[in-house]
């Protein structure tokens, strides 16, 4: 048991290598149409994992993460259209831009707590959406096309987008796992659980929260850029749509907040629901809502939370095993 626990980072590493190989091989086996669906699934999964990271690992509840989806997408479109640069090359800058924007608003939103903080980021999202909607240079309400991809070869665009989306998904699983067991992950968890005690053991709480917020929001920005790059068009009403927030909440709550595995389950359920019921209009939204409420009533820690506590299986949890309990049990049976 202890042996397995201490080997876990290595086992996860093997799984990560295998998954990376799978992503790299996919374009050779999967038709372009299916690849498009996979890009969408991976990007939405990354949105959800970005929010899960903030809510479950950093302890920042934000109801405005659509802000960063939109910012990442708009940065990519504008930077590429204005400079003529290849969007695939400048995409990582969407992470940087969104992260910088998060850093810039932190001093203001961090003055607020809990629900006020959550809403304040939503307010910022609405302000940015209105700002863009009223400026022709930014495409106003009808949005922007991605000019550079028009001259590129279709299959190259699809493959490149898929690799970026695959990278997002891999980071959402394995990056989050390794981050959570790292020194930074431990500091974030401490701040999440008890800010006063975190200070008392030498953690700079403000900077730790700041770093978590900037990292998570930057990641969401990169995911937003990938999502809209793959559809070649962005408009403020879609990119800054609060419904993105509903999707993230649904996926994370139903799967299990604060776990790597939960949003994987949540994303699968979300896309299955969509495939089966999307044609049913309002009924579909009511189904999503009822499913989330049902799961919350049964287990506030989501489906994976139940599975984990019932089965004792913990694949990607941020656990540091002490190695003490086994030793303590052994000495007890001897004496």
């Amino acid at each position, binding site marked *: 048991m202890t042996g397995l626990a201490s080997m876990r980072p290595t086992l996860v590493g093997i799984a990560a290598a295998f998954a990376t190989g799978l992503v790299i091989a996919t374009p050779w086996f999967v038709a372009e149409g299916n690849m498009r669906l996979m890009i969408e699934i991976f990007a939405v999964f990354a949105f959800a994992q970005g929010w899960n990271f903030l809510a479950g690992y950093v302890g920042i509840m934000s109801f405005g993460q659509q802000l960063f989806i939109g910012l990442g997408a708009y940065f990519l479109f504008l930077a590429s259209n204005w400079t003529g640069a290849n969007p695939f090359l400048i995409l990582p800058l969407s992470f940087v831009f969104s992260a910088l924007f998060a850093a810039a608003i932190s001093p203001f939103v961090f003055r607020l707590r809990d629900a006020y903080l959550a809403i304040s980021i939503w307010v910022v999202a609405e302000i940015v959406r209105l700002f863009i909607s009223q400026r022709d240079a930014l495409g106003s309400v009808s949005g922007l096309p991605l000019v550079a991809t028009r001259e590129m070869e279709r299959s190259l665009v699809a493959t490149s987008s898929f690799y970026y989306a695959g990278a997002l998904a891999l980071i959402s699983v394995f990056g989050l796992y390794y981050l959570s067991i790292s020194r930074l992950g431990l500091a974030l968890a401490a701040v999440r659980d*008890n800010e006063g*005690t*975190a200070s*008392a*053991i030498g*953690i700079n709480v403000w900077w730790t929260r700041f770093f978590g917020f900037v990292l998570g929001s930057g990641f969401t920005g990169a995911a937003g850029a990938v999502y809209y790059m793959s559809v070649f068009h962005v408009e403020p009403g879609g990119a800054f749509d609060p419904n993105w927030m509903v999707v993230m909440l649904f996926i994370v709550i139903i799967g299990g907040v604060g776990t790597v595995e939960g949003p994987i389950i949540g994303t699968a359920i979300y896309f299955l629901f969509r495939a089966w019921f999307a044609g049913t209009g309002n009924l579909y939204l009511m189904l999503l809502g009822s499913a989330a409420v049902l799961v919350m009533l049964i287990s506030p820690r989501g489906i994976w939370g139940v599975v984990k506590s019932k089965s004792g299986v913990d694949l990607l949890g941020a656990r*540091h095993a002490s190695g003490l*309990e086994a030793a303590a049990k052994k000495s*007890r049976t001897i004496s």
Partner: protein
Amino acid sequence: MAPVVSVEGLTRRFGAITVADDLSFAVGSGECLGIIGPNGAGKTSVFNMLAGAIRPHAGRIFLDGRDITETSQHARTLLGLGRTYQVPQPFGLLTAFENVLAAATFSRRSRGEEAEVARSVLVRTGLAARADVPAGSLPLLDRKRLELARAMALKPRVLLLDEIAGGLTEAEVVQLVALIGALKPDLAIVWIEHVTHALSAVADRILAINFGSRIAEGTPAEVMAHPAVLEVYMGTVLDVAPRG
């Protein structure tokens, strides 16, 4: 010998309540100062000021002769201050081991051997068998043990203990006294405690406060026999007895 930690003229009010009224004391390495006083006297508030969780309205706080009155809480920990909370404040979702590991890691005084330090502290505080249980689901007594374990894992130079003996059995009190006695030679300890026989066994001096001001100070025997202390404690006993 120069004191490790000292306060001069510490004063703080919460509205009409005075929790520290021109308090001064100093504690050297290898020394233990006990603090007693009735509930609400301001003992925990003094710790909150020492640790940097709240600011005094007047007075200075020194660590190794350096004025830390304006120093932030986490920076004081890095300078060597470690505290326990009277009401346990663990990282609830983290295991006992992770709680202590975090303390060993972020106090930066156990570089390269954080896990070993965390394990040894858990063994010494009797938490080894509970090491991998989330702290939030530990019973109260274990959460109190975890307070001491976490503070020890900081490897502090000044250890602030806030009522850690309450609720222990007599045998456990004996163990606790032995543990703190073993820590004492390398640290300056300030210990707030109602279990006065435990405190008297370790403390070199005791400071008695009421309404934030000093009512007596001296050796444990002197303070326990001091008329002002007897009056306050008899008073509380008489206040409480008819209700109980």
